[in-house]
């Protein structure tokens, strides 16, 4: 009664799990890969005031981006803002995440829920909140005046520090939650072992905690960096056109000037910059912590 299964049918049967990858793959191909390829191709077209774009294969858009001082400052602005926001967010998130892992029971639930709740509030509302705080004659300025630190209209609102502050705040919950899970994974006994071996809290932090949480630090940094460097809404509301940034320029060229080829070129530039920077971050941290050589035991 044994039924012989054809070899081909067997081959398919053994790989049935591949079917589960189909929905995700389709989604990514249709809504990410294809648009990205279109964008990539568009970057090599030329602009035409009447037909909008003319298919071509020219580097003139990229030449324009990289030869103009203005666009260079845009790239450095974006990188600076992204980098500082990441530094700020991870730096602030670490102690919070550490505290979260030591918290127990209801305190922990409340804290975690609190962090998640900030993600439920629309970005527009949180950013407008910041806007009011940072505004000339706003909360911060009043505070400065009360403390006698200065008077007159404060020009803080349209500056890079203000933007970094708001971006770091908006992306803080992601960093906290990622870091908390990686701090949790260290294992209390390793820290206790270090203590019995005579390590000071400072040495424990630098020699045990940081290296062992490096994967979490890197992934939270990547997340905050990519979110910050590609943020549009927050820069528009906080700094407006005052600080030239890549995402704002992309929007301007694609929706206002309607120069799609040039907008595409800037978009590709942003994409490349982000990718290079992210991989550089991973590479450096891997070198520092000798990652890949060891596994968690």
């Amino acid at each position, binding site marked *: 009664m044994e039924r012989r299964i054809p070899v081909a049918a067997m081959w398919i049967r053994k790989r049935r799990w591949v079917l589960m990858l189909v929905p995700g793959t389709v989604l990514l191909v249709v809504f990410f890969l294809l648009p990205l390829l279109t964008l990539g191709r568009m970057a090599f077209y030329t602009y035409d005031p009447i037909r909008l774009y003319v298919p071509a294969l020219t580097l003139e858009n990229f030449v324009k981006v990289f030869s103009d001082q203005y666009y260079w400052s845009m790239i450095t602005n974006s990188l600076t803002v992204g980098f500082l926001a990441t530094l700020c967010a991870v730096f602030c998130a670490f102690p919070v995440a550490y505290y979260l892992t030591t918290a127990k029971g209801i305190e922990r639930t409340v804290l975690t829920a609190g962090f998640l709740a900030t993600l439920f509030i629309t970005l527009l509302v949180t950013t407008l909140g910041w806007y009011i705080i940072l505004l000339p004659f706003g909360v911060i300025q009043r505070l400065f005046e009360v403390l006698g630190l200065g008077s007159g209209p404060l020009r803080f609102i349209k500056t890079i520090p203000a933007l970094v502050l708001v971006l770091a705040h908006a992306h803080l919950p992601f960093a906290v939650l990622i870091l908390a899970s990686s701090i949790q994974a260290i*294992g209390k*006994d*390793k820290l*206790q*072992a*270090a*203590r*019995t*071996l*005579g*390590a*000071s809290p400072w*040495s424990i932090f630098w*020699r*045990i905690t940081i*290296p*062992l949480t490096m994967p979490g630090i890197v992934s939270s940094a990547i997340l905050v960096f990519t979110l910050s460097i590609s943020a549009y809404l927050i820069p528009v509301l906080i700094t407006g056109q005052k600080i030239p940034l890549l995402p704002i320029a992309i929007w301007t060229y694609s929706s206002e000037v309607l120069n799609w080829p040039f907008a595409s070129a800037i978009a590709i530039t942003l994409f490349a910059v982000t990718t290079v920077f992210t991989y550089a971050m991973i590479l450096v941290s891997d070198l520092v*912590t*000798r990652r890949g*050589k*060891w*596994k*968690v*035991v």
Partner: protein
Amino acid sequence: MERLSKGMEALDAVLRAAGLTKKFGTLCVLDDFTLEITRGEVVTLLGPSGCGKTTTLHIIAGIESPDGGEVYLRGENVTRLSPQRRRVGMVFQRWALFPHMTAYENVAFGLQMRRMKKPAIRQQVAKMLAVVSLPDVAEKYPSQLSGGMQQRVAVARALATDPDLLLLDEPFSNLDEKLRRGMQIEMKSIQESIGITTLCVTHNQEEALVLSDRVAVMFGGKIVQMGKPEELYSSPNSRFVCGFLGDANTFEGTIVGTQDGKVTVAVGAIVLSGVCSAEMEPGKGVFVSVRPERVGIVRSLSEERSGSVLHGHVKEIHYKGATTAYVIDVQGVRFEAVEPSGASVRRLCKEQKVGIEIEASAVLVLDTAGEGGA
């Protein structure tokens, strides 16, 4: 007087825990726990999980602080001293090696923390890795080592800083049976070669018996009985200790007579004579224990030697390789007897009629009152 006793202490007591108490919420984990360990001694705290043994270890290491009581190391009160400054080495249950450091770096960690010079560190690490017989793995990461090797690295790391006291927290529970036995023996030889004072915590009775000079059986945050392994095994003071250390035939019985240190006890329909430490009156309900290896099997019932042989028949046979256990029914009372399964003894078969003979010294009669648990 105070001074003198302190000086004496410094001479041979490495650890003295006095009246340690610890509560987690309403749960009392340690209740007036007192223990003293002299130099070079290996003491094991043995008990079921939740009896407070790991908490004791943590308090001695300084990882946790007691609610009451004091810890003295080499005569100095260290109760409020941080673990960094106690000079105590600890091997954790899951070894707690630093996964991002090589075996060498793990062992060197404590020495670096003590700001030792590099050449001295190199020398000491090499020496420690040789002690645990792992000279060739210095550059390997913990994930590249087997369980037994990781365990040795953990031991080397704990010993590298030359601590006054070595604490072992269930150090072998993560190893498989065979490796565990090998490591226990090796640990004992390492301990003997260095002569380090050791406090070990385990729930494995065999481990406790193999490793230690003295065993303290713990239950409910207290030491129930403490003594040499053979003392605890042969004369437990309570039903709990008796049941926790080794196998035993245990019965409820009633005293029927006493005569110069010996008692006769009725267990079901049979009468056994045994020994008891306390004074007991006839009619008192007691707890009776007989180790299976002390139950002698009499095969030929024709040559009956005395009245001490009880007649019964074999109910169950459990072959265990080196030994064979027989369950023998004597007038409704079940005795387990263990014999070596060598070729020299004839194996019994089911329902075979046999006799059992138990020396009075093998029958332990214990008071049922005032017991920890069981």
